[in-house]
């Protein structure tokens, strides 16, 4: 083992040597510095490896040959080794990144950079508190010096503010140190710990000053303007080092010194961390400057980490795991993002759209953003999961709320940024010049995130059970992204089919229903993908990512696995949705609602674990800790995915603007994930007549109103896909309502609806999507008369709408019939009436859909369009066959469904006698009705066809037009604002109250952020005043508290 | 009113000034000055409303007479300006830029009398007739009877009676004829 003193020695030695050798050229000195850092990294790595393998014991290094307190000593323990490795590694990689910029600034800058790293190393390792002060000062001076060596007023101003602020902080620290020494007589941290300084009279003020200084180093909200300025103003590479190395070192210093302060400080540290986390993330949503926004994020993450180490006594062993996960994600992702920001060079967020011109940048950026928010498979996901689980398990709900709120805010601005990058206009922006020295560090950071993420999952007990095979498949598809679409599509279909084949025997029947919807539906939707040309870059990885998530939630045995699948699905579907034109704002709101819902689930899972130390998914069946709240949260979380009223505003845009074959994926298939979740939650709640009947009742109303709102809004849409999207909201409202009934019939209705909705909505979305591909517009009034050009599409839509409307004899009626029986059986008449009314309104939009697109007048520019692509037609007609089978033999579907549901709801089943269903209230014989209706239909049709066999075939303008003749199809086609009269009667119901509500919430948050951030006036003096006031206020709080 | 007419007279040299009523005056003005005059009246004298524009065929004088009638809503008075233009290749300066309804009047006059208004929007479109190819039908030298006979398959054996004479002879066959003879009956 090379003793860690060589870290210091190397840095100092090389630093002095460069003073002599700088005549040999800057390349040489730069290389020397890098070599030195590499050596330092090697030393810390060697130690870290030693500790990791367990062979190594912590080792004290004594300088000057004396024992403490007479001399300074260093400690190389496992934490020190880890943090030192982090600092040196980022120093090395960042050194490569900054090689050219340091070279421009001269050998002095190179030396200062080296000294900065050395200072941070010693901060980590030292056990002497005065030495800590010295090296903190050295690090500050180095950073300020590095900024000074840059040119430009902006960064200089930032540097000056930085040095002012750190001077004030160090003054506090120094006073604290001297008092500590006065009371204890030693500067050694170990001595200070053993001396019980906090018990000594007057010692608390020393501790207070020391702790305040260390906390202030972490830039707590709101005394952190100087830190933000540095993040914004300094070189990107330097910001990365500050964010990654300096902040990590400071964090460890805080951790180290907490031992002195004693346990009563834990609470205050957590509190300050929470305030910082929430506050800075809240202000982040107002940011338009990338680097400053990243600064806010960095500070927020540090706040979260502060909060975590404040909870170390409560979290116990898991503290390290949690802190590690969040820290490493932050460390790598933030460094990567800062480095990227140096390459992109755009100040504003919208300028980041240039990354689209370099697809791999987009991949990198997405990786970092998702890692920061805490998506799987990144370490932060597992860390956040464990954190929330443990905090809720110990009853710290308020803290969980703060954490989740802060994370939510962070997601707002990060995803908005990502959205700009993916969607904003980028024609006017030149592609950036690529320097390899700058790109390699970013790649290292990104790939490490994946590796460490996998490692983190394996570290935890339940995380190791996660099935990473689908994720691997995603990676393979990502690697093969350059291949033509045919190969990739075949590969994706084959992969999904094989996976389904291997998985399905292991599932119970309930899960199998949903797995079939997800996987078979997914395969059918993917078949349509053959219709596209080119490589369709980036589509397959994200589609498969979504399906991986979907199958993940089906297969999940533990809550973590469920949540893992849930988040994968969210991420995949987000990317799928955002691929559409004009889908950026909708993608963002989708993501935010999804994250909000996911956090609700997270909290609920945490609450479920309170009384039962188990990670099985079954625990949601027996929640005892605040069960109303837990189930409420669980249901609310799933309702975000089913887009129930209040949480639905993301859906119309997201589904309406998505690509043609993505809409069925996200509408017919993805929404069922929410239904599946609700099924699980409601099974957990148990049968109707228990303490949760109030919850179910509320859910019933939510479902009913959703059905009404969705259908009513659909009536007034001019965009075909938006119409279908609103229709999906309404249909999901039926399902939610039927589930809430919590009887056998109710659930049978819900499952029937789920299966039906999957089929007909997939048919409708696929067909309309295929038509849109042909005619090039979503707007229904721009189409018309397409029946003559697209008979196959027309038949598909016709079957789809008859099935959707629930008119006998097609399968939709099964749902309606069951629905009535369920409602009357349960006694929820009013809700039932509302849902029925919604069904009546459905006619309006269904007619509008088929009329304005397929009937009426054919538009001039569509005179030569071809029928829908065969690749769309294949899945559509497979699904139509499904609907037909269901219609002819409903008992083939309903009877098994009833059997599946019987264990959960044994009472009030449907009786089947020779294909005729009956309940206590009514009866229905699907097959016979079908045969009768089709028979009558056939007779009438035959009569009419024979009697008019010589009918003259007319063309489109051969109509009675009051003695005149039409001039243009556009003015002869009734398509725009068709239901004007109806609108006049019901317009008060179409006021988008929910959107207004969320707009108001957004506006309030923005206003708060905009108002609060005015404290960062940019004046260095004000920042110092903040520091002093922060200390005073904290003091008063602590005294008072 | 008189002052106005005086002012117009000095400015535009009116002729044949006739006071139809106290608040309505007719006057003839030269073809070159009429557009300037109505522009002046609209912008400075408050004649904001263009009442109508009409045409008469003075075949004896070989002239068309165009009449522009303007109304001043504040003063409640009307001024009608007559313009005599040549009957051969009749062309008149368009006033479409002053009032939009002038478009329609000019379109009508073009169709009925064949007077050209170069620059007037949509002046070439049909007004009441669709697909008219003959000479303008309101010209006095256009023989509508001849046109109808030529075009519309007249049925033979038609006799025409003067209603007054016919009915009198039918009802009171013994009374002597005292009434004036109707010129129009052939």
């Amino acid at each position, binding site marked *: 083992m090379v003793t860690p003193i060589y870290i210091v020695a190397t840095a100092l030695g090389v630093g002095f040597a460069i003073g002599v050798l700088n005549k040999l050229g800057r390349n040489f000195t730069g290389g020397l510095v890098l070599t030195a850092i590499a050596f330092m990294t090697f030393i810390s790595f060697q130690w870290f490896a030693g500790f990791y393998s367990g062979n190594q014991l912590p080792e004290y290094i004594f300088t000057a040959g004396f024992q403490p307190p007479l001399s300074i000593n260093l400690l190389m323990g496992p934490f020190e080794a880890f943090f030192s490795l982090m600092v040196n590694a980022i120093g090395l990689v960042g050194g490569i990144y900054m090689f050219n910029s340091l070279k421009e600034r001269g050998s002095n800058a190179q030396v200062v950079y080296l000294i900065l790293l050395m200072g941070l190393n010693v901060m980590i390792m030292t056990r002497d508190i005065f030495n800590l002060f010295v090296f903190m000062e050295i690090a500050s001076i180095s950073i300020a010096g590095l900024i000074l060596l840059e040119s430009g007023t902006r960064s200089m101003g930032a540097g000056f503010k930085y040095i002012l602020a750190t001077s004030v902080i160090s003054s506090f620290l120094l006073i604290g140190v001297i008092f500590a020494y006065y009371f204890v007589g030693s500067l050694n941290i170990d001595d200070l710990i053993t001396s019980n300084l906090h018990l000594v009279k007057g010692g608390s003020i020393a501790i207070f000053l020391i702790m305040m200084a260390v906390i202030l180093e972490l830039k707590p909200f709101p005394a952190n303007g100087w830190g933000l300025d540095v993040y914004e103003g300094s070189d990107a590479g330097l910001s990365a080092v500050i964010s990654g190395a300096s902040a990590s070192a400071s964090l460890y210093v805080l951790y180290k010194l907490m031992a002195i302060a004693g346990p009563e400080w834990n609470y205050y540290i957590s509190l300050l961390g929470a305030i910082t986390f929430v506050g800075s993330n809240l202000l982040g949503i107002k940011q338009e400057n990338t680097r400053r926004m990243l600064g806010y994020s960095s500070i927020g993450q540090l706040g979260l980490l502060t909060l975590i180490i404040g909870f170390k006594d409560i979290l116990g062993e898991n503290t390290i795991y949690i802190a590690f996960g969040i820290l490493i994600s932050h460390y790598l992702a933030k460094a990567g993002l800062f480095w990227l920001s140096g390459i992109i060079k755009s100040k504003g967020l919208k300028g980041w759209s240039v990354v689209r011109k370099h697809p791999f940048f987009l991949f990198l950026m997405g990786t970092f953003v998702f890692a920061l928010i805490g998506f799987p498979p990144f370490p932060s996901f597992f860390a956040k999961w464990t954190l929330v689980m443990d905090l809720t398990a110990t009853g710290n709900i308020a803290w969980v709320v703060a954490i989740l709120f802060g994370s939510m805010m962070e997601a707002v601005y990060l995803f908005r940024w990502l959205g700009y990058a993916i969607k904003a206009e980028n024609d006017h922006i030149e592609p950036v010049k690529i320097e390899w020295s700058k790109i390699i560090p970013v790649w290292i950071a990104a790939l490490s995130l994946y590796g460490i993420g996998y490692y983190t999952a394996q570290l935890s007990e339940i995380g190791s059970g996660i099935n990473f095979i689908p994720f691997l498949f995603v990676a393979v598809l990502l690697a093969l992204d350059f291949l033509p679409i045919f190969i990739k599509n075949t590969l994706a279909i084959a992969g999904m089919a094989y996976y389904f084949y291997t998985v399905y025997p292991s599932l119970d029947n309930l899960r199998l229903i949903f797995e079939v919807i997800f996987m078979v539906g997914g395969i059918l939707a993917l078949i349509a993908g053959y219709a596209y040309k080119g490589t369709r870059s980036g589509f397959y990885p994200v589609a498969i990512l979504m399906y991986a998530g979907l199958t993940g939630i089906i297969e999940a045995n533990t809550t973590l696995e469920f949540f893992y699948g849930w988040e994968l699905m969210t991420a995949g579907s987000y990317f799928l949705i955002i691929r559409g034109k004009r889908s950026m704002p909708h993608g963002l709101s989708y993501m935010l609602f999804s994250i909000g819902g996911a956090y609700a689930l997270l909290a609920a899972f945490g609450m479920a674990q309170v009384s039962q130390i188990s990670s099985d998914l079954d625990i949601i069946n027996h929640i005892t800790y605040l069960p109303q709240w837990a189930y409420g949260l669980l249901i609310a979380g799933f309702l975000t995915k089913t887009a129930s009223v209040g949480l639905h505003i993301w859906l119309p845009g997201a589904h309406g603007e998505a690509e043609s074959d993505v809409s069925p994926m996200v509408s017919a298939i993805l929404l069922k994930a929410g239904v599946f979740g609700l099924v699980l939650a409601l099974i957990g709640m148990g049968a109707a007549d228990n303490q949760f009947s109030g919850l179910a009742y509320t859910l019933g109303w939510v479902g009913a109103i959703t059905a009404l709102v969705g259908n009513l809004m659909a009536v007034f849409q001019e965009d075909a896909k938006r119409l279908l999207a609103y229709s999906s909201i309404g249909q999901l409202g039926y399902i939610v309502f039927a589930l809430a009934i919590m009887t056998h019939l109710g659930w049978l209705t819900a499952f029937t609806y789920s299966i039906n909705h999957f089929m007909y909505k997939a048919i409708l979305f696929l067909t309309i999507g295929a038509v849109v591909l042909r005619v090039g517009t979503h707007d229904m009034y721009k189409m018309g*008369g397409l029946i*003559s050009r697209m*008979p196959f599409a027309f038949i598909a839509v016709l079957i789809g709408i*008859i099935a959707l*409307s629930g*008119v*006998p004899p097609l399968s939709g009626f099964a749902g*309606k*019939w069951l629905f*009535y*029986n369920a409602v*009357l059986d349960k*006694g929820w*008449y009013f809700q039932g*009436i509302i849902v*029925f*009314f919604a069904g*009546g*309104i459905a*006619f*309006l939009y269904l*007619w509008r859909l*088929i*009329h304005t697109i397929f*009937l*009426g007048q054919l538009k001039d520019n569509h005179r030569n369009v071809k029928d829908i692509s065969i690749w769309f037609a294949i899945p559509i007609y497979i699904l139509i066959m499904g609907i037909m089978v269901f219609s002819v033999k409903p008992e083939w579907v309903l009877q098994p469904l009833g059997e599946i549901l019987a264990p959960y709801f044994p009472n009030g089943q449907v009786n089947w006698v020779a294909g*005729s269903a009956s309940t*206590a*209230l*009514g*009866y*229905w*014989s699907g097959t016979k009705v079908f045969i*009768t*209706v089709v028979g*009558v*239909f056939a007779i*009438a*049709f035959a*009569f009419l066809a024979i*009697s*008019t066999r010589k*009918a*003259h075939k*007319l063309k*489109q*303008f*051969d*109509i*009675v037009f*009051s003695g005149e003749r039409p001039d243009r199809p556009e003015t*002869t*086609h*009734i398509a725009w604002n*068709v*239901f004007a*009269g*109806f609108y*006049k*009667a019901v317009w008060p119901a179409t006021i988008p109250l929910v959107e207004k509500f969320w707009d108001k919430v957004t506006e309030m948050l923005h206003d708060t952020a905009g108002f609060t951030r005015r404290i960062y006036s940019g004046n260095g003096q004000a920042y110092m005043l903040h520091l002093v006031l922060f200390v005073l206020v904290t003091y008063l709080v602590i005294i008072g508290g | 009113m008189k002052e106005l007419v005086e002012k117009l007279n000095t400015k535009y040299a009116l002729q044949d000034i006739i006071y139809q009523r106290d608040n309505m005056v007719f006057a003839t003005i030269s073809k070159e000055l009429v557009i300037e005059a109505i522009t002046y009246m609209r912008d400075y004298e408050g004649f904001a409303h263009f009442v109508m524009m009409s045409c008469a065929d003075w075949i004896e004088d070989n002239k068309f007479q165009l009449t522009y009638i303007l109304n001043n809503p504040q003063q409640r008075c009307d001024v009608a300006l007559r313009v005599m233009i040549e009957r051969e290749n009749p062309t008149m300066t368009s006033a479409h830029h002053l009032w939009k309804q002038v478009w329609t009047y000019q379109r009508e006059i073009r169709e009925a009398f064949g007077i050209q208004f170069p620059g007037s929007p949509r002046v070439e479109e049909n007004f009441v007739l669709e697909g008219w190819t003959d000479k303008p039908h309101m010209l006095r030298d256009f023989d509508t009877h001849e046109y109808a006979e030529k075009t519309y398959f007249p049925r033979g054996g038609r006799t025409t009676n003067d209603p007054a004479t016919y009915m009198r002879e039918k009802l009171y066959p013994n009374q002597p004829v005292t009434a004036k003879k109707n010129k129009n009956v052939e």
Partner: protein
Amino acid sequence: MNIYVKIAYTFLGLMIVLNWGMLMRVTFRKIGARMAGRHGVPFRQPWIDLIKNIAVRTTLTHGVMFYLGPVFRFSGAVGLFLFMPILFGKEAWMNFSFEGDLVLILYFQLFGMLGMALGAGEGGQPHSAIGISRGLAQHAAVELPMTMGIIALAIQYQTLSISEIVAAQQGGFLHWSFFTNPVASAAIMLSALGAFGYSPFNLVKAPNEIPIGPPTEYHGTYLGVLMTSGNILGVMETILFMNLVFGGATNWFELIIKSFLIYFYAVFVGMVFPRFRIEQSVAWFFKIPLLLGFIAILMYSF
């Protein structure tokens, strides 16, 4: 009962209903004419019109959907007949009502409407589309109070089977829902006005404004089929309300009297009141009938 005998009876029943529908309609035309002081059309007129329409020589077609409009409507009408018990207690006249209950009937009403909407749309005639959009909007409004009333009846009798509802009303006219559940009956009968499509709710087929709306392109045989379906539908609507509200019928005579009176009610209102605009009619159904339906259900919610 043998299935062939059954089919024969059903066919017979259909013929009776069709002819009764024609007779009933022409009777009301006569009554209307007499009110205006005219003689009005002869009683044979509907049959003659039907023959004439089928005898029209020129037939035109706009496409396949154009055929399907009348076919859908005819199937809807005949289906409604098939799934409705016509006479209570007579197995021969119960048709195929054991295949489906009230829910089937409610939704089957829409079958013909949907087909008509599609078939008329194929014609490309804007007036058809206007008429249909009005019709659908009005229908959505009619359905709400009517279904509330029907649900109230279903709750009252604890069944969705029409036969059982009729059975429960036997034994004197005081057992009719009209007397046992007047509020629900009022809701149903008020919204029934919309279902019959007479004034004030006949904007759908405003003859002079949008030349009779949806079927404006239909002629000849198509129109004949539509007329036939319309006559069947008219009777079936009355039979539905008769079964639900007025105790059903046990013999043809009773059926004829009751359906005549119910139809008379719709026609009477139509003769008296002028036409509503579509937003007015929607608003009207959302006022009084909806309130009645609400009360009807409220009575069973506690």
